């Protein structure tokens, strides 16, 4: 008789001392894991719930300004450094790690219109409504230029010492010189925003009050393109990873992403705000951007999505004038009308601080589960659900009703016209009034 019975030595399966980790024995044979799919689905639902439970995006509010904060700029070298400027002409330097103000200066008489860092933190430029451009270093003034015209905005070149101002024309300046190098213009209207591209460094975009977006190559004598939209755009931001893509924040509650090579239609319309969108900033990953709006909310959009991924609001936050995505893509800073800066997490439920490898693996697992089961109705509903203030909620509803009734009206109008063209152009094309070269 040849016989063997199954005998396990408990020492092989239990830990030696109470300080050890518990020993685990794996066997991945599917028969030992019955109902794996159903359990995984349940785990996915739980992961969605946990994600919502831990969604506490608001980190802190930074007070100190004595008037509405208009502009926020990122420090080029430090993640924790931020500068803000308010309507009363004050500029403040912030240390986000310690959540405090590290310096302030009365920079201009009247509102500050432009604020940006140069290539390094040695150069900080401010422009005010008092027609002066000031250069700062370590909170001390280095240089002042008095401009002949009003200045509405300011942007620094990413790779050279040039910077551009917006006003009656777009003017190109060089650090240390008191006169602009040259002026660029297309049409006559006031230009109130100017932005350099971070990749195609010589590419410049401006927004003007005739509702147009104008693109310039500063190496060329004349501007490149001009696109006129239905309503004016308030802010523009280039995608830091896609050289040819940029997004504008429009007065008609939407944001539009464009491809420079094909300006006949927008790549994507981002519709979720219920007030004019005032500012936006791209995440350094180029996959997302944050936008602040007149409807007192901050939203985060994936670049390729029409709907926002996240909406942030607080009871006290008024219209959001400026938003910034931090350079590690983890935080969002918003400045608003009621004199405060606010620091938010970009991923609402993200755990800050050091995580152990086990925590990380569970987070990864939950993420995978959500992506795998994200389209199941239960999971989708939980992940999508946001509690928003009653006022905002009503406005969203109202907007939906307005849009649908507009659409119905358009269909009916078309039904009763002689030429029955029922193919309604989409909003991406509709917003573009004309494109000029």
């Amino acid at each position, binding site marked *: *008789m*040849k*016989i*063997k*019975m*199954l*005998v*396990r030595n*408990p020492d*092989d*399966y*239990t830990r030696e001392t109470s300080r050890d*980790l*518990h*020993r*685990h*024995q*794996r*066997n*991945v*044979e*599917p*028969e*030992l*894991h*019955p*109902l*794996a*799919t*159903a*359990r*995984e*689905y*349940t*785990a996915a639902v*739980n992961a969605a719930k946990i994600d919502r439970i831990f969604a506490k995006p608001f980190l802190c509010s930074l007070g100190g300004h004595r008037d509405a904060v208009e502009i926020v700029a990122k420090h080029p070298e430090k993640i924790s450094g931020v500068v803000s400027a308010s309507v009363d002409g004050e500029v403040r330097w912030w240390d986000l790690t310690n959540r405090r103000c590290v310096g302030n200066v009365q920079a201009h008489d009247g509102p500050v219109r432009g604020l940006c860092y140069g290539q390094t933190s040695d150069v900080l430029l401010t422009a005010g409504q008092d027609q002066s451009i000031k250069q700062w270093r370590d909170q001390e003034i280095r240089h002042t230029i008095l401009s002949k015209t009003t200045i509405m905005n300011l942007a620094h070149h990413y790779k050279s010492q040039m910077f551009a101002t917006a006003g009656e024309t777009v003017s190109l300046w060089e650090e240390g010189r008191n006169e602009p190098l040259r002026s660029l213009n297309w049409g006559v209207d006031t230009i109130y925003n100017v932005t350099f591209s971070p990749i195609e460094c010589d590419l410049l975009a401006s927004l003007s009050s005739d509702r147009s977006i104008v693109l310039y190559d500063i190496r060329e004598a004349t501007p490149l393109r001009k696109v006129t939209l239905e309503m004016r755009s308030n802010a523009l931001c280039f995608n830091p990873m896609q050289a040819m893509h940029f997004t504008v924040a429009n007065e008609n509650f939407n944001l539009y992403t464009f491809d420079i090579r094909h300006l006949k239609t927008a790549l994507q319309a981002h519709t979720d705000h219920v007030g004019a969108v005032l500012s936006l900033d791209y995440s350094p990953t180029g996959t997302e951007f944050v936008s602040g709006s007149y409807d007192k909310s901050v939203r985060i959009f994936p670049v390729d999505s029409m709907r926002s991924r996240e909406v942030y609001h607080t009871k006290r936050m008024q219209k959001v004038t400026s938003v910034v995505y931090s350079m590690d893509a983890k935080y969002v800073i918003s400045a608003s009308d009621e004199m405060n800066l606010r620091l938010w997490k970009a991923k609402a439920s993200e755990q800050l601080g050091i995580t152990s*490898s*086990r925590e990380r*693996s*569970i987070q*990864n*697992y939950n993420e995978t589960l959500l992506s795998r089961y994200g389209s*199941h*109705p*239960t999971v989708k509903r939980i992940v999508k659900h946001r509690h928003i203030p009653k006022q905002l909620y009503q406005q969203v509803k109202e907007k939906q009703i307005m849009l649908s009734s507009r659409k119905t009206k358009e269909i009916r109008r078309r*039904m009763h016209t002689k030429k*029955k063209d*029922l193919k309604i152009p989409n909003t991406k094309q509709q917003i573009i009034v004309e494109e000029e070269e």
Partner: protein
Amino acid sequence: MVAPPIGVIQAKELVTYLKHTLQAVIMAPISTKASNPKGGKGLKGLKKKFKASKSKILKKYRDHSGTDTGKDLPQEDPFPGEAPVSEEAKKKFGRVDDEELNALKKNRRAKFRNLAKKIEQTVRFAARSEILLPEDHGYLEAEKGEKTYRYTQNEIQENVDITSASKRFTLDLSQFGPYVSNYSREGRHLLLGGRMGHLAAFDWLTKKLLCEINVMESVHAVQWLHQPTMFAAAQKKWTYIYDTEGIELHCLKALNNVTSMEFLPYHFLLAAASESGFLHWVDISIGTMVGRINTKTGRIPFLRKNPTNGIVLTGHQNGVVRMWSPNSSTNVVELLAHKSSVTDVVVDRGGSHMITSGLDRSIKIWDLRMLRPMHSYTIGRAPTHLALSDKKMLAVTLANQVEIYRDILSGTEEPYLRHQVASTVMTAQFCPFEDVLGLAHGNGFDSILVPGSAEANFDSYEINPLMNKKQRREAEVKLLLNKIQPEMICLDPDEISQVDVLKLRERIDASKQVLWRKPRALNLDSIMAKRKGTAKVAKAAKQYIEAEHTRAKREFHEETLKQKKSKKVKDAKKPNLEGFQGVLARFQ
């Protein structure tokens, strides 16, 4: 300098390599917790295997180099590339049907190619990780001219080690019988219930008694709940839940006159069948009655479960086997298994086979996916109870005799072991993770040794037979967190991850209907009458037809919208009644 023996180097390398691959596997299906695969025994086994191959390699090397020294062994890999994986292993660890992927349309195939690759890789890793499993299954082989079923339990007991020998025991309890029994999920604890009111729970490996009480009324069925801290006992009238101290925790008056019970651990459902023909499902984590069905078949003699999908099975006197889900007021499956009364039903742990026995002295093996019989055996006497082990060994009781078959699923008819107990067997159950069969009978309980019946390598994230108190508590929390909702019980356990084809087809049909919607009968006379035969008339007619088409489309859309709205109103009015709410009801 003497190089270390090549076998050892290879084994070490292989073990580290496999550790990495195992981690990759662990990521995939169930949990991502870092594993701690035990190298101990596996490494020893590997060393043995490589010792055998070492001599071959040496010989090869000598032939090649022409030298005879054992020194300066070659450093090159004798097994270049990845170790091959057998098709059998792939099949065992596979989770996705290849046919499903092949059934996809060509243009979709490209999309799923990457996914398929990933799945295949996972399966390969899983199959390779088999080598790391530390335990080997038990076996019993007869000498030449002998048969294994001739060996008595005493002979077996004499030939095994002392630990295994202690697993064979007999409890002589002639006073309060006949007895029913139940092993806990992790196989360490045993529950005995005597018809005359005797209830006992104990750790049968150490023979340590947890509690022993007399409930002073008849006990018909006993069942451990999700962990060996609580158990249910179906007594004369009602069902009670006790803890391991023997303290009565609950009295489930809703479960009255229960004949048989089953516990679904992943759903936390206690299923019970009663004298009056009712089936009950009680969620023991929140204490609610999840389902209550009048089967209208009279007394239900026994209740069994399908562990892969949570469906319960009943067998009836007219030879019919029915399957029940708490989500359906009627049975899910009904099949005529035998020409006379069905005595017992079991489903294997893979969920692909069902075995039934009837008073017509036959045992039938069914393919559960096709619901067709595969084999049928006739034996000398009518089998009374069946038990199926993790390794698909079948125990058949014939009054006071037990016959165990090793490969009955693949068609071998010769018994593996035979045993006789003192009285008629009331319950037969293989102990999970131990090579033991428990037989509760009229005069007590018999624990007999069946080498090779049990799963040798458990997964401690599922069930851990050697867990301590802390691990038990942890496991309880995990189990509760991932409790499957009772609405998800259905025949196909993977239905939740599949496309709802019916709904999809409905939607496609609806969209097709829009395209093929017939316009109203056209009255072109008024147009034609004006100017016959001119190009303008033709144009006008064309426009008219187009307008009719668009109108028809719009009407259709409005109609469907109306229908949807009215359905929503109806649904809102309708209370949440019982009726079939399958796993896909949530999509409505």
